[in-house]
């Protein structure tokens, strides 16, 4: 039996990689994938604790997250396509119109 610490550690590493990807990269698609990575790090932590503690709530929550993530990907990709059409770029540094 692999101790839960390993799962949690892996989850943390994945999360940090995802967070760094969001923060460092400028390509919207890469950022998007990094966000997915962070969501899945969370999923991993959920299922790890759920199996250790023998509570199904965590497993169920992961399904929800996967469903939300799928919806988010659909909306997010659509947005990226729309942005690309107007800006001819998906560089997030150029999408700063919200700045006052």
């Amino acid at each position: 039996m692999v101790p839960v610490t390993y799962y949690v550690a892996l989850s943390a590493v994945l999360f940090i990689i995802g967070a760094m990807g969001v923060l460092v990269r400028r390509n919207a698609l890469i950022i998007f994938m990094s966000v997915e990575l962070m969501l899945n790090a969370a999923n991993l932590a959920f299922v790890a604790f759920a199996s250790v503690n023998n509570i199904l709530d965590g497993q169920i929550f992961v399904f929800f997250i996967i469903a939300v993530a799928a919806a988010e990907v659909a909306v997010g990709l659509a947005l990226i396509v729309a942005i690309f059409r107007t800006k001819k770029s998906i560089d997030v540094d150029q999408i700063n119109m919200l700045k006052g």
Partner: protein
Amino acid sequence: MNFSEVANTGLFFNLAPLLVFLPLIGMLINMIFGGKMSEKAIGTVASLASGSAFVVALLLAYSLSAVHGQAYTVPFAEWIHIGELQLDWTFRVDTLSAVMMLVVSGVGTLIHIYAIGYMHEDVRFKDDLRRFRRFFVFLNLFIAMMMILVSGDSYLMLFVGWEGVGLCSFLLIGFWYDFDTLGQKSTANAEAGKKAFIANRIGDFGFLLAIFTTFWHFGSLQFDEVFAQAGHQPATVITAITLFMLIGVTGKSAQVPLYVWLPDAMAGPTPVSALIHAATMVTAGVYLVVRSAPLYSAVPGAQYIVAMIGAVTALFAATIAVGQYDIKKVLAYSTISQLGFMVAAVGMGAYVAGIFHLATHAFFKALLFLSAGSIILGMERGHHHLAHGHDEEVFDPGDMRNMGNLRKQMPVTFWLYMAGTLALAGIFPFAGFWSKDEILLDAKLHAEHFPGVYALLSIAAFLTAFYMGRQIWMVFFGKERTDVAKHAKESPPVMTVPLMVLAALAVLGGALNLPFEGFHNLGHWLGYTLGEVEGLALDLGVAGISTILALVAIGISWLIYGRNPLKEGQPDPLKKPLGFLFTGMENKWFVDEGYKAVIITPFEKLAKFLSITLDWNFWHDWFHNSVIFAGFQSFARFLSDPVDMGIINAIADGLASLTQRSSEGLRRIQNGFVRSYALSVLLGVVAILGYLLFK
């Protein structure tokens, strides 16, 4: 109850306030309705007001004789009540004040009537009805004030009247404030009024000091209370009070050294000169001394000073009268001289003689002044007749050198004037003979206590007869020196009839106090108030000397002015033999010039120094502008520049720039890059989680 029973009960005494209020009512009627009334109506109202006061005075005198001279006080109004201080307006009716009331209202009424005719013709009147009305308003106000003066029961009420008559004197001297006595545009009359007022103020100041001192030491101003304590007070206090009072007397009664205002007061219309500046107001000082007799009698030293002031004034003014050319100026100096006789008399304690002379002098001097007014108007008429309407030529109708032989043109006035002159010169049996003789007799009898007074008064009496003789010869005899004098015209009856009454009084007035056993009426009458005095018998020596002196003086004046009448343009025949003496008399001994050099000029210089150097240059320019204003300015600059701009404004500015700078820093955080926002979120989450983990 018949009339005499009412008099016995003293009920009439309660009428005393009417003495003041009847003239005031007359004044108010003329003030309110006078604008729509004719000249005659205005004059009648004023004369009736004064005449009714005379009737009241008669009733009071009658009641006094019915109750054997018992003094009576009529409380009229509460005035000042502060703690111990109780000052009321109370009327005092005693034999002394009754004499004054009778003289004031009696002579006053005659002069009111005369003034109706006089003011109608006064050269400057010119049918100005408002001026006419104002004249009678002032005259009635004067009568009211004089009544307050003589009927007051305390020094304070006396002072109220004293100031009131001073005001009326000022108003009436400057009555023609815009014309001089010749009818030319000038402020000379206003100046004369001012001079009188200021000279009187100096005297009033002395009188006020006397009142304050009296109140301080006696605790009262009421006559009876003050006199009751006169024996218990130290002599120095009483001496101080009496001498302060004397300053007031020299002001009001025109004695040396404050007499200078009275000759200038002749600028007033002639009825005013007669009423105020001869018969009544100027005798207020004599009345004051007689009223304060218990005080003066207690201090012989002060009495001697009073007597000497009177005697010196009598002689001094008489010498000046000899050198005057203006008919009214001669009479003015004569008035000063005669007032000197009265003051000398009351100074010697001869109160009866003083009041006796006061009364007879009121008769004959009012007569002389009013006759002089009649002469001046007669000359005016002549001048008007010659000028045929165009009277641009300046002509002095009061200058005796322009007259001559007027007895032909103005016979009535001539005889009236003669009666007044003989009375003034002291010729037997005219009124002035008896009263002046009584003064001289007193001076002779008291010669050891009052050395010098008799001699001074005798010389003054000699000069009196001389200058009056000079006047008579110059005015009524000889040849007319101008065409105007040839065409002079007699005055109408409204003027001459009051003069006849006065002339009768001037002839018979001596009967008031004949120096024979069984007479001495005035002496007995005043004795009720002043204490019984022994009536002096006629001293043939004194009477003879004074009569001879007067006759000799008139004789000399005939030799100089009568035998060879003054020719047109000829200088006074006395000018050559007397030399500088006559120049002195002619120029009033240069007293006015001396006062100007010694007092007025230094005073003006001091005032100029105070106003220009001290007030303007030092106080305004330096202290206000340099010290206060500039100091305030630099203080304000200090507050505005370093304090306000430097500190307070800097704090406000600093707050603003701090906000600006900090917001500029914060602005950089909001860079629009989503990932940097995400980093913030991450860091926040890490921080919170870290806190939760490690707390």
